[in-house]
């Protein structure tokens, strides 16, 4: 059984088929790259996987169970976490609180425990804070745990978003352009971090990215999208040579000559 199975998934917005008949699977411990020109439907696929949109047809199975029709928070609870293309942190809260919010589904003390400050509250809060700091530590953010998210430099905000996603203890992590706006050094650092995270947390990762050096380096398999369809799939080296991919990115040389 695959960790994630997507079967003939499509979604239609009015007359536009944004994602058209897509089938793929992801296994444990794998990094799958999702690439394609702007508007190809990459982020829409993420929104479908996280139940923000409901597919018009087709099915999504996580651990063999369909997640179509779930609410987003239920999907997150069942082991899927994501980051956003445009950073969406809780800006006025501290970095630590951002990560602690990520733990939401994993702590279960009740409202009564909160209001009466019962022992379960103190125990869980302590435990949770320790775990949150441990995650921040992995990304070298422990020293800024108390800083408001909006006051962090851009690169750290990106990392913090990954921390928050990891806090929900996912089996599958969806990263939407994690290297956007980073300089080459930061990208290098991020790359090794993604590898580390994958091994350390035993995750599968789906990665949307425009930085080809990152994608080709880190992804074991690639799926190339154009106009909502899969136009190629395979190993990074095969994709580099693929004529359909080159055409999608650069246009058809013959057409332009004509």
């Amino acid at each position, binding site marked *: 059984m695959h960790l994630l199975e997507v079967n003939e998934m499509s979604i239609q917005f009015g007359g536009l088929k944004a994602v058209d008949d897509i089938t793929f699977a992801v296994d444990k411990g794998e990094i799958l790259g999702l690439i394609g020109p702007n508007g190809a439907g990459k982020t829409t696929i993420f929104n479908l996987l996280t139940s923000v949109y409901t597919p018009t047809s087709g099915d999504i199975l996580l651990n063999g169970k369909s997640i179509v029709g779930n*609410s987003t928070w239920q999907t*997150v609870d069942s082991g899927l976490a994501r980051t956003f293309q445009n950073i969406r942190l809780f800006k006025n809260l*501290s970095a630590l609180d951002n990560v602690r*919010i990520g*733990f939401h589904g994993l702590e279960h003390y009740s409202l009564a425990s909160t209001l009466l400050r019962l022992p379960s509250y103190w125990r869980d809060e302590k435990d949770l804070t320790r775990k949150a700091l441990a995650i921040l530590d992995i990304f070298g953010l422990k020293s800024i*745990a108390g800083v408001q998210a909006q006051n962090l430099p851009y690169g750290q905000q990106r990392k913090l978003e990954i921390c928050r996603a990891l806090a929900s203890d996912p089996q599958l992590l969806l990263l939407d352009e994690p290297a956007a706006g980073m300089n080459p050094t930061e990208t290098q650092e991020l790359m090794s971090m993604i590898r580390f995270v994958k091994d350390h947390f035993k995750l599968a990762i789906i990665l949307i990215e425009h930085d080809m050096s990152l994608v080709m380096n880190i992804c074991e398999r690639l799926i190339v999208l154009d106009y909502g369809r899969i136009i190629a799939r395979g190993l990074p080296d095969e994709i580099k040579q693929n004529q359909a991919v080159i055409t999608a990115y650069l246009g058809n040389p013959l057409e332009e000559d004509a």
Partner: protein
Amino acid sequence: MMPKKKIRSYLINLAAAAFVFIVVYLALQLGWINSYYRSILILICINSIMTISLNLATGLLGELCLGHAGFMAVGAYTTALISLNSGLPTYVGLTLGILAGAVTAGIAAVLVGIPALRLRGDYLAIITLAFGQIITILIRSLGFTGGALGLNGIPLTTDFPLTYWMLIVTMYIVYALIRSRQGRAILAIREDDIAAEASGINVTRYKMLAFVISAMLAGVAGALYAHYQGVLTPEKFDYNYSIDFMVMVVFGGMGSITGSILAAIVLTILPQLLYGFSDYRMLLYSILLIALMIFKPSGLLGQKELSQRVFQRLGRQLLGKKPQTVPVEADIPTTVVDEDTYLTEQGSGDSGVGGSSTRGQENLPVSGTPIAEAEGKHQERLGLDTQGDEPLTRKHKGRR
């Protein structure tokens, strides 16, 4: 178990609350405060409860609620009817009445919230606006509420100790709620509901939770008000009354509990002080509000709180001891170093009662500790550079 530091902090807060109570209570008993000011004191407490309650819905959850006086009316009428008709001994009736007021206001909030809170956007503002209107019309047209004449002869059992301790309980409930997983979920929804949902938070459920608790507290305030005023008329709970509380919330700072109390104090006393200039009263009131919005748009305290730490720092400052924190703060771009340095806390992360900062086992400073301070000390001990391995962008105030 509860960490020792927390026990101490809770006790200090309780002692501070008791101290204020004893001082004011003695002053009342000894006749230093006349009955006119006594009634203003009670009104301040009731308004504070209302403002904190509205702040929970507006400043902390981030939903605009324009009919909060409606929930207050539900609580007030429920209590009044119980006191007038049940024939129970006065204080039993009062206790029961306050609880019933909270419950009915909560039920009203569920009914309002079910359609409005499932949606994103400002639907709650519109629906609560309508709710406020509908409630006054309902009260006017129903028989058992006394119609337009209102209810008379409600026993005047609301006194200063009762309202004061209800205010303290209200503060505790909101603080305790905010510094918990439920509270963080509520704050997350205010900050970004899409990201909150993507973090596994059931957005509708927590919106409902905050909204219902907020309405229940408004119901309590209404119950106290009914027994303070002795007379209830539907006109009292109109749209303007809701807006009065909204003004207090904005004045004190959206999301600041202590700010709400400050605002309730200022904006309850101010109209009384200006009573002599009845022609210019509203003019002065408006000028004050406009001035505040120009010079401090985030309200008196913004999202900050007056907490023990603030008083500690203030004390250190007054005693002429140099706070050890300043040099470190200058190096780390926290929220600090601005005109409010000595009022500054971490957003909603830290505040008076209690303090959620559960410390990690490595004795690391966390949650809401002005990290600059604590982290600075920590790192100095270790002999580390405070800047860490990545260069932090600095914010230079006053230079662009």
